[in-house]
């Protein structure tokens, strides 16, 4: 290879590279730049306006000794694990059921996907009413004659996060179902035929053949669900407002409240840096395994 050929490599696909510049700049300035800015100011004692007055790790010490933050993290873990498991499970089950060449499949698909068209705010308000003991499920069941039936998760600090979880699943599972259905339909019919000839039961075909082949769909779903979990905010605001007490607080709400209501930017930045760190801890090893290993294959 002659030395003169090297620069040519840079100019190849020039128009495509120029077209990508705005996006690269956006990514660098907005995502990387602003994240660094946030991390930087989390070491200051900025109140309403950002000020460069360093206080070391004080904000983080205060953060981790605040009861509300600890409850928020605990809620996020419960909400996150349950959402992940149930979204994938219910989403796949519904998709597999719809795959049985049933009649009116389009109608069912629309009905199941419909909640996804609603915003979290509307979802939250709807489920606030549904779970309200005076108007919702509890009232209906009691009217049917079960006088002692009690189901008011939104007013019980111990289980309120599960009330939020129900609403979140109702809203989000339809989309996962659609992704899964597309994945199932993407499997070659020949494989089904081969499995049938070998006499493998349908459910075994799903679990041992179809699911491993759907790996990319599962990863897409996982990323969509996970990003939804970390930023859960509006659902809680609309449905419970963080209550009763502070039993259903989540980290994103802590960040917002401290940055804007309590006029303590430093504390809000410290909390959002912790959120970034959590995401990084989950994403980096996964991305390393997922994308790093391909080069060696």
């Amino acid at each position, binding site marked *: 290879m002659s030395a003169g050929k090297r620069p040519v490599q840079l100019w190849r696909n020039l128009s495509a590279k120029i077209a990508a510049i705005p996006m690269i700049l956006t990514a660098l300035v907005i995502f990387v730049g602003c994240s660094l800015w946030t991390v930087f100011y989390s070491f200051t004692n900025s109140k309403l306006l950002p000020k460069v007055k360093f206080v070391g790790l004080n904000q983080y010490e205060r953060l981790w000794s605040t009861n509300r933050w600890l409850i928020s993290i605990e809620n996020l873990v419960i909400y996150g694990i349950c959402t992940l498991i149930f979204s994938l499970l219910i989403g796949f089950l519904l998709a597999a059921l719809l795959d049985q060449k049933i009649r009116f499949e389009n109608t069912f698909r629309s009905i199941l996907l419909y909640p996804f068209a609603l915003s979290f705010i509307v979802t939250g308000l709807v489920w606030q009413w549904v779970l309200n003991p005076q108007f919702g499920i509890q009232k209906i069941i009691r009217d049917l004659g079960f006088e002692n039936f009690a189901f008011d998760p939104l007013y019980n600090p111990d289980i309120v996060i599960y009330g939020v979880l129900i609403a979140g699943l109702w809203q989000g599972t339809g989309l996962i179902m659609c992704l899964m259905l597309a994945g199932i339909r993407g499997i070659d019919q020949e494989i089904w035929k081969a499995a049938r000839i070998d006499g493998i039961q349908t459910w075994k075909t799903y679990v041992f053949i179809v699911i491993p082949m759907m790996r990319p769909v599962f990863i897409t779903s996982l990323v969509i669900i996970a990003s939804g979990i970390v930023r859960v905010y509006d659902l809680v605001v609309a449905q419970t407002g963080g209550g009763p007490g*502070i039993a259903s607080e989540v980290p994103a709400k802590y960040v917002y409240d401290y940055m804007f209501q309590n*006029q*303590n930017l430093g504390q809000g930045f410290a909390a959002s840096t912790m959120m970034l760190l959590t995401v990084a801890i989950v994403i980096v090893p996964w991305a390393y395994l997922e994308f790093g290993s391909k080069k060696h294959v």
Partner: protein
Amino acid sequence: MRIRTRFAAFAACLALPFTAAQAVELEVTHWWTSGGEAAAVAEFAKAFNATGNKWVDGAIAGSGGTARPIMISRITGGDPMAATQFNHGRQAEELVEAGLMRDLTAEAKAGNWANLVHPKSLLDACTLDGKIYCVPVNIHSWQWIWLSHKAFKDAGIAVPTNWDEFVAAGPALEKAGKIPLAMGQQSWQSSGAFNVLMVSIAGPDIYSRVYKDKDAELAAGPEVAKVFKAADDARRLAAKSKVQDWNQATNMVITGQAGGQIMGDWAQGEFQVANQVAGKDYTCLPGLGVNEVISTGGDAFYFPKLDDAAKTKAQGQLASLMMTKEVQVNFNLKKGSLPVRGDVDLASANDCMKKGLGILAKGNIVADVNQLMSPDSLGQVNDLFVEFFNNPSITKEDAQKQFADIVEDAD
């Protein structure tokens, strides 16, 4: 058709500069959205429109906690409104320091505010480095309990005259199917109720040593323990109250479903809208009938700096207008709050407002928490008490310890 469109466009071009020159539109943001509050703010709008300018109402629903971040981000983000409500005190402190607010010293001098505003602490809260940055419009005090005559009649007992009698009446009210104490579940209401108990049960002296001097030792001590005992009682009495907003809780008192509510004097506007008469349908006890003291917090209007000269002039007009006698009386009668001028005559004020005016005249006043503590520390207090009131597993000793920690770190 075509000619007509052109003509319309021409007319619009002509009309636009004229209307702009005649009526200056000022957008005013505030969080007054309940019935009584909306009626009161309409008085400002009416008076301002009468000067030939135009009041553009920018009400933000929710509560101060929802509205303030929106206001602040608009001001810091370079899209300021012409005027905005804040609780005077330390909420807008940094905005003023950053030079984002307009100096109103000239209007204040011309209107002689320094001599008119009573008590003087209200104007002091608007002052930074000798310059005045806001117009106090009313005095609100938190230290009231509102009692429903109907609820106590249904329970067959006399209307209490102080906090201890109220606590003692709790079981009888519950027996009659009433909720003894109505309380919204938002955090500012829980911490507000606690602060009222602090002034009333422990007295103004201890209140200011805790909130103003941040005496953590005192906050952990036996005097404040009495306050936590009262808060524990309040928590028990309010256990069945499952409403969110303060006016829903007030409504429970108005309709007789609840015995009483600890709430600021803005609740009075709701009684007024419901055509209830003080002393006949409901009773108000300042300082919970124990220590007749009121705090002098309230609302003030700040005017962000604008580039437009015509708007800046109109801002000045609005600021002066808010302080005039007539507007003060009309506004405060509707709002249920006390006027900031010491010289206005509120002959048409009802019983409760007269009680408040009497206490004010005697000088039994304390500063509002918003003037003493930063929003950051108050936010922590809010978090503590909303948890305390909703989670019976937190003991009063635990809560007191956490409270003392907050006071120790407070600024």
